[in-house]
């Protein structure tokens, strides 16, 4: 079920009503109901893949309990390995089987050996990478002794399948989310109002920015060999805002929805396009995934403790794995590697933690130096997104080649096309950037701090109305495919 669908507009109030009005006296019933609602939410797309969520839930719940009773180091390690093998095994089969098979066949063909292997028609279950990582975090935390295993299967199922963040995150840590299912939840007016506002902002970013940018980004990327340099640059910019609006919009809706039910999810985006260097960008983009890799991969690999070269190796590993997490395509791997290369000079000069605070803190405007750094970081990000969006590496390189050499030969993208539609879109992107700049020290771009309820109402009503009026053609969230 899509957040920006009529189905969800019906589903959400119904679940909200039953949850707070009929089941508010019994925590167990609330958790059970949330699990059922989440399974319905997921099964609405394809009920067959509910079995995968159930398998992951059962496996990690059982392994958690076994870990509690087990003190033998080797057995404990074996249990952890079993959890990793089950979860990554399912993920690997559904997401990477064909990729490995194709590359294996191609690699052998380079040496003159021809292998006949038929790829399978595998449907990629929506959000599999997200809930797999979420449930893995539970077993790892239990294994490390950082979390007590739960005996409450209903609460655990609700944690794994919690519908607001099930299919596209934020990837919650068990330490943060699971305990929230144990505690009685009380309706909090301020939290619900704030959540509702965050949903409105998320819908605006998804339906107006992402869905409209998608039309032009697709048009240019799909015919990139016909467009002029400037048009290709616009195509890359459209995709840059599409992916941000799409993914951060989803996160805002997810966090806002969770707040309606009394839950606090972690922040997933912190205005990444205002970053002054790539390290800062990665502290602000898809935070739940970056920190997941930091906690469960980078630090276990030794982090920065083993000297500079070890650190460089580890950084490359997490960026490449992070790229591969996004999809079974070399484009994502190169995208990850490219970001690692961007990161390298900062790390070598120990400058990767130079920009921790929000840019131009307590000021309205950034300094010229900050503008320059933000511009450079943004440009590097735009270049990297070309790999992310391209169909394959050949496409990415030809896009880049034309971007820097085509000049004005080829089609010129006309911003006056479609009756001013593109001009409207630029205006909305400007509105989004303005709102986010003004609230860059807040949780989300529309988090207004004004004592005047009339102002809050006026802004919310305007953004909500603009969203419905100027929504683009409805499209799936990009990150569903990951």
């Amino acid at each position, binding site marked *: 079920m899509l957040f920006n669908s009529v189905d969800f507009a019906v589903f959400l109030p119904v679940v909200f009503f039953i949850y707070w009005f009929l089941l508010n006296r019994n925590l167990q019933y609330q958790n059970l109901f949330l699990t059922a609602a989440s399974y319905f939410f997921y099964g609405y797309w394809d009920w067959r893949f509910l079995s995968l969520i159930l398998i992951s839930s059962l496996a990690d719940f059982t392994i958690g309990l076994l870990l509690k009773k087990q003190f033998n180091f080797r057995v404990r390690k074996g249990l952890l390995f079993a959890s990793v093998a089950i979860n990554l095994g399912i993920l690997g089969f559904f997401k990477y089987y064909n990729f490995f098979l194709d590359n294996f066949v191609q690699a052998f063909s380079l040496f003159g050996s021809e292998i006949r292997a038929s790829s399978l028609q595998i449907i990629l279950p929506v959000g599999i990478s997200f809930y797999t990582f979420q449930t893995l975090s539970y077993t790892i935390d239990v294994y490390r002794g950082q979390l007590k295993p739960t005996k409450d299967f209903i609460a655990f199922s609700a944690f794994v399948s919690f519908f607001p963040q099930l299919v596209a995150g934020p990837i919650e840590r068990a330490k943060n989310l699971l305990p929230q299912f144990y505690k009685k939840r009380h309706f909090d*007016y301020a939290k*619900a109002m704030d959540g509702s506002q965050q949903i409105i902002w998320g819908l605006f970013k998804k339906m107006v920015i992402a869905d409209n940018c998608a039309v032009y980004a697709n048009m240019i990327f799909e015919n990139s060999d016909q467009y002029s340099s400037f048009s290709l640059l616009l195509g890359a910019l459209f995709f840059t805002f599409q992916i941000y609006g799409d993914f951060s919009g989803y996160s805002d809706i997810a966090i806002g929805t969770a707040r309606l039910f009394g839950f606090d999810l972690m922040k997933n985006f912190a205005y990444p396009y205002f970053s002054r260097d790539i390290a800062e960008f990665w502290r602000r983009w898809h935070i739940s995934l970056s920190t997941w890799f930091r906690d469960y991969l980078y630090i276990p690999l030794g982090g920065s403790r083993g000297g500079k070269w070890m650190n460089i190796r580890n950084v490359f590993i997490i960026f490449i794995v992070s790229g591969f997490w996004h999809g079974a395509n070399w484009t994502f791997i190169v995208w990850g590697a490219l970001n690692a290369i961007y990161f390298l000079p900062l790390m070598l000069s120990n400058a990767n933690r130079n920009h921790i605070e929000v840019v131009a803190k307590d000021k309205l405007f950034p300094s010229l130096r900050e503008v320059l750094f933000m511009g450079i970081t943004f440009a590097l990000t735009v270049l990297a997104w070309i790999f992310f969006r391209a169909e394959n590496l050949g496409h990415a390189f030809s896009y880049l080649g034309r971007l820097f050499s085509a000049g004005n030969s080829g089609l010129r993208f006309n911003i006056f096309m479609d009756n*001013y539609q593109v001009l*409207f879109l630029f205006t909305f992107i400007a509105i989004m950037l303005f709102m986010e700049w003004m609230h860059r020290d807040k949780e989300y771009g529309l988090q207004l701090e004004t004592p005047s309820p009339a102002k809050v*109402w006026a802004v919310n*009503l305007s953004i*909500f*109305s603009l969203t*419905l009026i100027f929504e683009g053609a409805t499209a799936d969230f990009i990150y569903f495919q990951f």
Partner: protein
Amino acid sequence: MKKYLLQIIGFLAAFLVLNFLTVLVFIKYDWNFNKRVKSITFNNPDYDCLVLGNSFALDGIDAELLSTGSCNSYNLAIGGASVRTNYIQLKEYVEQYEKKPEKVILALDSFRHDFKWDEIHPVVDFTMKGKTYGVRDLPFIKFKWLFRELIKKVISSRHRDAQLVKGQLRLEKKIPDATKTPEKPVPLAVENFKTSPWVQAIAQLCIDYDIQLIVLEMPSKAEQRNSTPVGPIPVVLDNGIPIEIHNFNSADFEFGLDPENDWIGNSHLNLYGAAKFTRTIKSRLKI
């Protein structure tokens, strides 16, 4: 909880009020809406001739010029209307008003649209008799493009300065037609007329109310002209009703349209082109 629910209800109520106000703004400032509301609230209209069609007819047929002489005319065409919408408009008109028109000009564009298209124009759908309203009829959802049109009026004098005269939208701006007629133009898409259930329904309605139906193909930019003569071309529709198509988009037929001065872009005539075209219709069809 009560406070939250009151806020949500208040928000939704304000949203509905905003939607309602929007309809009022559209009725006043949007040509299609304005015209539609007028046409369903005429006070005993005595039109002899009605023009049906979409934006090509809306811009391209001058009902005031058509009315000189004895044929009082009104242009009912609506931008973006399907032939099904035209059928609904005509049916409502003949059922609602005592005086029936003597003639109906169905001005179509087979070079662009498929006449089987089933969509009812949102403005007509919204204002249809007996309409039951649902969530998707909220003006903010249903009339998205009208907002864009309104903004265009605010920022562009070309849109702002247009006038609605007897249902015709008069646009003065000139955008030259720089296209060329192909060496081998395609023939007129007669099948499009023949097989359309909505052209058939209009023809049947005209028979039922004893109205003369004049079907014509609107002129297009040069590159979309066809190889069929101007006619009239006799055609028997799939429901057995014979009609004649006046093919004003024939590549062989010239009536003095100036590619530099008579177009507003995308095969739409400006007020100068519309006047020339209307005179041609008047003389050829003896209206």
